């Protein structure tokens, strides 16, 4: 109780002290005055003479100053008072040197802002747990055949059943896949993104629908058509009204009842969809290998155990698999690793490290500048110490300046971080999950605070410690020279500049290698010309017969080609492949010999002139023509990769091949042309064998990608025109959204561009800061060596020599920095080799070019101060002695 009232009184005293000199101080003076007067009177009465009386009174009172100090400490919270004093003083000092204050705050703001933004990205993409129950126990399972380079393959439902039955480490397994769905509404048929999931998927993930309920196995077995809809779909199409629950939508021409609405942002791994359906298990049939599989570990089991389990158990059902599936293996991958692959993780952590390096450089620079300034305050510090300030008090006061700078920079930096985050959200790559969720949430703000404190310590402490370590004698001749900082401060600043350059070269090396990689990737010939090309997915209704589909596709193509502004158009089944298939291909070698083998392979139906439309060069033979019809010989055009693989060293024109083993019923195709490779999985993956068959000669697929190269200014309007035309031809056909081919292909390299751009930004910032640092140091060095330079000039040195001397000092530091940083850069390059394309981490050309930059910067930063040094008047310089 009384402790509280004491503290309250002290707080009142504190607040009073903020309003100026306290009433309390004056009162105390009056009291002391009264006391002494009374004592003197009594002393006089006791018979002392006036002088003696005064002395005795003072003696019996004791030290007034000490008592006043004690009193003051008791009447207020001196810690805060002193901190406020220090803050005011620091502000005043900063106002006196606006140049330093501005540079320091700007540099630290950049560093704190960049680090906070980067942490926000790392947080949402890597650190935050996924929105599922116990996400660390979730895994994705792949069917693979590593000997044939068949990876991340989907699985059959029957296989998944076996895994569930035979695995001891997996608690549950669920399947899912994207599905095209057609929603029939008042405006016609529309294609929407849909997904099919097994009924146990939601419970396994631990996700509850926002409204309503999930699927049950019984209902699925009974064949009831229930669907779940996404939150976005619910808001946009159904007005977000709870009444939507229980209503029926016509999906794929069948009435389906909405039984639940999913929470906002719901995704299964990377799969996002508007409408979700449940699928059951077809009894007795293995099913197609078409499903993604997710599993949950039992509590306490590890991924390795699950992997071992499944691999061991596979032998039990292997015999029941069809022949070609027996060699397959099953791979268990933790969900986290699947979502953000090892390579992306590495990239992100490296960027994080890079941005932290920039922070260290920034702090080093500001510390360096601070050290220079604090050297000038030696006399003031010595005076304070002589007047009785404790070392702790002085330290606190010196540190306040650094903390003040850090605090201001911290506030500005946090604002800057929100701008950066906005930019990252807008321009970042799409394949980093949850990148769009990056924000300034409390954890990120806490990180900003931590970094600000760290900056405060790094910037405030070294100058303070440097000063305290000096002999705190009042200045004399010794003090005069020690004002220039002495050897100690100079050495520290030099090592800071060296550290600057070392870090800068590390970042530059990384950026240089990434730029080279990016250059190489850009140079990869995609195999087609992508400018001004629109892609749309055309779907024919299921009910249509084969000839009707062919006729529809033909008519749509003719309509499109007739449109003004359309230069070329064509169809292809699917240009960009998500996964590779493995196919058995039997090849006619000529000389009556055949060979069968498995190829990672894709086959596409194309309209006759598509390859010309795409701009894929024809290497040999002829393109398809209108002569290739259902009644003529089945022909195919193959790509260069397939030609090399299947007929190495020979001319494939005129040769035949078929899909499947020799005795399969599939037709023999005759090769009529060979085209260049089309990079159907992005520029960084190797081209794989592809074959093209004329649409006219094959069974028309359900959906086709429609291509058009157009000069139209407004692609959306063109898309709408075409959509109307399609709708006019066939009411239930649908045309998906129009996408630019350049954008689609560009998406493959979006992540690389992101990483490269960021690293370039970091390294340029680092270089800028290193320039500022070395410039400051050289200026300081000249200022302290003015006498020496004066002497040299007076004794006969040429101004050119002085110039070279200063320049050499700066260059030496830069070179040492490069020498120190290069080995580390090489090491880091090895660690991050996966991120590179077409260039080795120790590529000499890149490293050489990248080293020239800091050297040039170091030289350039020293030029101006060096020229000023040349013009020192020796007489004036010597007079300073």
């Amino acid at each position, binding site marked *: 109780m009384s402790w509280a009232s004491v503290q309250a009184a002290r707080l009142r005293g504190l607040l009073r002290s903020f309003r100026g000199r306290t009433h309390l101080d004056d009162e105390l003076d009056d009291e002391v005055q009264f006391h002494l007067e009374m*004592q003197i009177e009594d002393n006089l009465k006791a018979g002392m003479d006036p002088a003696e009386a005064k002395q005795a009174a003072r003696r019996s009172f004791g030290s007034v100053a*000490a008592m006043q100090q004690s009193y003051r400490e*008791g009447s207020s919270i001196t810690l805060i008072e002193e901190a406020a004093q220090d803050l005011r003083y620091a502000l005043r000092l900063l106002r006196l040197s606006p140049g330093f204050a501005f540079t320091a705050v700007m540099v630290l703001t950049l560093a704190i802002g960049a680090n906070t933004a980067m942490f926000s990205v790392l947080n949402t993409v890597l650190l935050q747990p996924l929105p599922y129950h116990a996400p660390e126990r979730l895994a994705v399972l792949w069917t693979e055949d590593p000997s044939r380079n068949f990876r991340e393959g989907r699985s059959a439902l029957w296989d998944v059943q076996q895994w569930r039955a035979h695995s001891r480490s997996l608690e549950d397994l669920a399947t899912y896949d994207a599905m095209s769905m057609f929603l029939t509404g008042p405006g016609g048929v529309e294609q929407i993104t849909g997904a099919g999931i097994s009924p146990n998927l939601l419970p396994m993930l631990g996700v509850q629908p926002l409204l309503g309920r999930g699927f049950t196995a019984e209902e699925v077995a009974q064949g009831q058509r229930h669907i779940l809809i996404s939150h976005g779909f619910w808001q946009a199409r159904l007005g977000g009204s709870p009444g939507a629950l229980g209503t029926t939508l016509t999906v794929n021409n069948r009435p389906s009842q909405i039984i639940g609405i999913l929470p906002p942002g719901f995704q299964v791994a990377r799969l996002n969809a508007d409408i979700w359906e449940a699928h059951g298990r077809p009894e007795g049939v293995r099913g197609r290998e078409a499903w993604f599989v997710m599993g949950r570990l039992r509590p306490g089991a590890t991924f390795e155990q699950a992997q071992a389990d499944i691999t061991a158990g596979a032998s039990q059902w292997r015999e029941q698999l069809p022949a070609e599936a027996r060699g397959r293996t099953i791979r268990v991958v933790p969900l986290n690793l699947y979502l953000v692959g090892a390579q992306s993780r590495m990239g992100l952590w490296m960027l994080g490290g890079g941005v932290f390096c920039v922070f260290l450089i920034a702090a080093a620079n500001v510390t360096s500048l601070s050290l220079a300034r604090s050297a000038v305050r030696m006399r003031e510090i010595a005076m304070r110490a002589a007047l009785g300030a404790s070392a702790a008090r002085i330290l606190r006061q010196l540190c306040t300046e650094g903390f003040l700078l850090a605090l201001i920079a911290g506030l500005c930096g946090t604002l800057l971080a929100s701008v950066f985050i906005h930019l990252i959200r807008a321009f970042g790559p799409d394949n980093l999950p949850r990148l769009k969720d990056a924000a300034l949430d409390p954890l990120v703000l806490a990180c900003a605070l931590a970094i600000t404190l760290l900056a405060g310590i790094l910037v405030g402490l070294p100058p303070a410690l440097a000063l305290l370590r000096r002999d705190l004698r009042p200045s004399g001749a010794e003090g005069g020279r020690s004002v220039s900082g002495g050897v100690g401060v100079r050495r520290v600043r030099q090592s800071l500049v060296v550290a600057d350059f070392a870090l800068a070269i590390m970042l530059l090396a990384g950026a240089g290698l990434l730029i080279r990689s990016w250059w190489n990737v850009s140079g990869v010939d995609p195999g087609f010309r992508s400018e001004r090309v629109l892609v749309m997915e055309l779907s024919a209704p299921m009910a249509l017969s084969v000839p009707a589909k062919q006729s529809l596709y033909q008519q749509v193509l003719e309509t499109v080609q007739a449109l003004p502004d359309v230069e070329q158009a064509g169809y292809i089944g699917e240009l960009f492949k998500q996964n590779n298939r493995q196919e058995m291909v039997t090849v006619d070698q000529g000389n009556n010999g055949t060979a069968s083998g498995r190829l990672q392979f894709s086959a596409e139906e194309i309209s006759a002139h598509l390859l010309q439309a795409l701009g894929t060069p024809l290497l040999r033979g002829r393109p398809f023509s209108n002569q290739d019809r259902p009644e003529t010989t089945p022909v195919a055009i193959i790509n260069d990769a397939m030609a090399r693989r299947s007929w190495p060293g020979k001319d494939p024109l005129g040769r035949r091949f078929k899909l499947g083993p020799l005795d399969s019923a599939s037709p023999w195709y005759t090769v009529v042309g060979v085209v260049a490779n089309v990079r159907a999985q992005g520029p960084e993956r190797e081209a794989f064998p592809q074959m093209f068959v004329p649409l006219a000669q094959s069974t028309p697929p359900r959906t086709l990608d429609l291509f058009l190269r157009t000069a139209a200014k407004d692609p959306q309007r063109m898309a709408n025109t075409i959509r109307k035309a399609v709708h006019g031809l066939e009411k239930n056909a649908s045309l998906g959204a129009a996408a630019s081919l350049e954008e689609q292909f560009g998406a493959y390299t979006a992540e690389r561009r992101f990483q490269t751009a960021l690293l370039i930004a970091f390294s340029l910032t680092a270089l800028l800061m290193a320039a500022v640092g070395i410039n400051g140091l050289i200026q300081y060095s000249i200022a302290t060596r003015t006498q020496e330079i004066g002497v040299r000039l007076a004794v006969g040195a040429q101004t050119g020599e002085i110039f070279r001397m200063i320049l050499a000092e700066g260059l030496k530091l830069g070179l040492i920095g490069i020498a120190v940083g290069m080995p580390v850069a090489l090491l880091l390059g090895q660690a991050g080799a996966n991120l590179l394309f077409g260039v080795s981490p120790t590529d000499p050309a890149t490293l050489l070019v990248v080293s020239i930059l800091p050297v040039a910067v170091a030289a350039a930063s020293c030029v101006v101060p060096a020229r000023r040094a040349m013009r020192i008047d020796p007489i004036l310089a010597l007079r300073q002695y």
Partner: protein
Amino acid sequence: MENARNKAEVLQGTLILLVLQTLESLGPLHGYGVARRIEQISQETLQLNQGTLYPALLRMEQEGWITSCWSTSENNRKAKFYAISATGRKRLVRETEDWRRISSTIERFLELQTSSPAKGRS
């Protein structure tokens, strides 16, 4: 020298008690009056550094044991007078009890010490 130091140490711990008792028995008094009174009653055996009184008075006022106001002294000078408060009286009672208890315990302890050597001899 050593005597003075011992005296000072004893005084530190009991200053509150002495001040409160003084104000209780003499009524409102200024700082100098309290100091003189303490020196008088202790018959010059306790000689405090008079200055140390004022921080103690401040602390006691913050605790709420005494109150202060400015008034005129007996010789028409302006002085700050202190008076004991109700809380202060309670505190005085407690401090007095504590002091009596401690000093009687020590008294007993010292009696035992002086009597035991005699026992040993017989």
